[in-house]
């Protein structure tokens, strides 16, 4: 019995040869590629796709990984970040996966990357034309927490009936005096679809607007892909008397002195003393030089 398993095992002869290039079989890649093209053609609309079971857990980037696997080639240079950092364990794990199955160069440099897969951040370095940023998305439906039913939210998108979102933001103002939503802040893409920018802090929302890079969003568990083409207007929802605002810090980065980057707060001792450092490790290292 164990012999037959050894024959069947994908691990026999080394994992990199036993699986197809970039892990996914060609038929699956074609299916994902078709979904990506439709996603680009209808900016901000969530295209259902036949998401596969990946060798990493749902919720840990399987959507982003499938999108990256469908687009990546040997000529690419891949950067993977989680919370803005290249060396967080999940980023390391995903980068290792692609280095192994796609024989691809990896980098921590935002500028040098042709594909950037990210969870929860957009790099501080302005993306350029030709780059593709792939977002890992947990809940692709921006209306989900207001309306849990897919059948309902799909109709709301079809009708551009977004009153429920406006009401929710308005209630936040009534309660807190301002829009208290801080991350996964909803955006309107090209004036048509309300879209979840994934759980990036609202600090990063302005970077999505008319970005020269292509933005691809992959939700593996929920089996949706969506996209924002380059140069496409992405407006963070707000009201005339309560305009959209991003987070600000009184402090600067304790390592590089940056005043323009998103800062992580680090508790350094038992008395609760804090320091602030850049969340984007590549940006921080560049500015320390």
């Amino acid at each position, binding site marked *: 019995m164990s012999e037959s398993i050894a024959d069947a095992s994908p691990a026999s002869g080394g994992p990199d040869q036993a699986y197809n290039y970039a892990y996914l079989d060609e038929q699956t890649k074609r299916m994902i590629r*078709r979904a990506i093209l*439709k996603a680009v*053609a209808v*900016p901000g609309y969530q295209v*259902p796709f036949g998401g596969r079971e990946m060798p990493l857990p749902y919720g840990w980037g399987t959507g982003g990984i499938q999108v990256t696997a469908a687009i990546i080639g040997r000529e690419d240079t891949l950067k993977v970040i989680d919370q803005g950092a290249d060396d967080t364990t999940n980023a390391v794990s995903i980068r290792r996966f692609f280095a192994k199955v796609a024989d691809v160069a990896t980098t921590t440099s935002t500028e040098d990357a042709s594909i950037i897969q990210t969870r929860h951040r957009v790099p501080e370095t302005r993306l350029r034309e030709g780059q593709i940023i792939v977002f890992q998305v947990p809940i692709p439906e921006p209306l989900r927490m207001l309306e849990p039913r897919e059948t309902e939210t799909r109709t709301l998108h079809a009708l551009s009936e977004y009153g429920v979102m406006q009401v929710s933001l308005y209630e936040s103002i009534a309660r807190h005096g301002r829009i208290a939503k801080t991350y996964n802040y909803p955006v309107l893409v090209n004036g048509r679809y309300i879209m979840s920018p994934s759980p990036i802090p609202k600090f990063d929302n302005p970077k999505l607007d008319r970005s020269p890079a292509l933005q691809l969003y992959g939700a593996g568990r929920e089996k949706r892909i969506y996209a924002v*083409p*380059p140069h496409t207007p992405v407006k963070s929802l707000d009201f005339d008397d309560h305009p959209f605002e991003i987070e600000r810090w009184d402090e600067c980065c304790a390592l590089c002195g940056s005043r323009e980057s998103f800062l992580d707060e680090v508790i350094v001792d038992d008395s609760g003393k804090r320091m602030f450092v850049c969340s984007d490790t590549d940006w921080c290292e560049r500015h320390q030089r």
Partner: protein
Amino acid sequence: MRDLAPGLADPPHDAQRLFRAVLDAISHPGRVVELIDAPAGPSGVGPAATGCLLTLADRDTPLWLGPAYDHEAVRDYLRFHTGAPLVADRAQATFALLSPEVAEFDGFAIGTDSYPDRSATLVIEVAALGSGATRRWRGPGIDGASRVAIDGPDDRFWQAWNENHALFPCGVDILFVAGRQLAALPRSIAVEA
């Protein structure tokens, strides 16, 4: 059965490069990209048309052939290399290969308000990209507006396009091909004279 022309030489890698070229094109509507890895294909079909069908079509995507392409050699080639079912009813097609002369958009799937992705992608072979009549394109993927020259489609074609664009988010998407070149026109793009 006569000998078929070869398909992709190195499927995973050729298909990946071809797809990235198509993705680049649809992300930058009007941009002319070269499909370097596209195979020659059957006689009467250009390499770019062949390349994008071999990259994207398979047994899950019904294919409709315009009259100029509905020949045995083309059918055999595409059926063998893609496995795509060839359909006579254009409403069933996920992909279509046609020339600009028969390009009326009527009858191809345009998706629904709830599922606008369930729409056809038309591969239209034209005389040349980058020369011919120039029009102004605007929309997602284009920084402001760009002037795009395509030799082939006539005024009637562009009128039909505007009707298609007006259906947004429904509508068909177009991949224009000529020789080894390709330019994309997604439904989100408005085209003016």
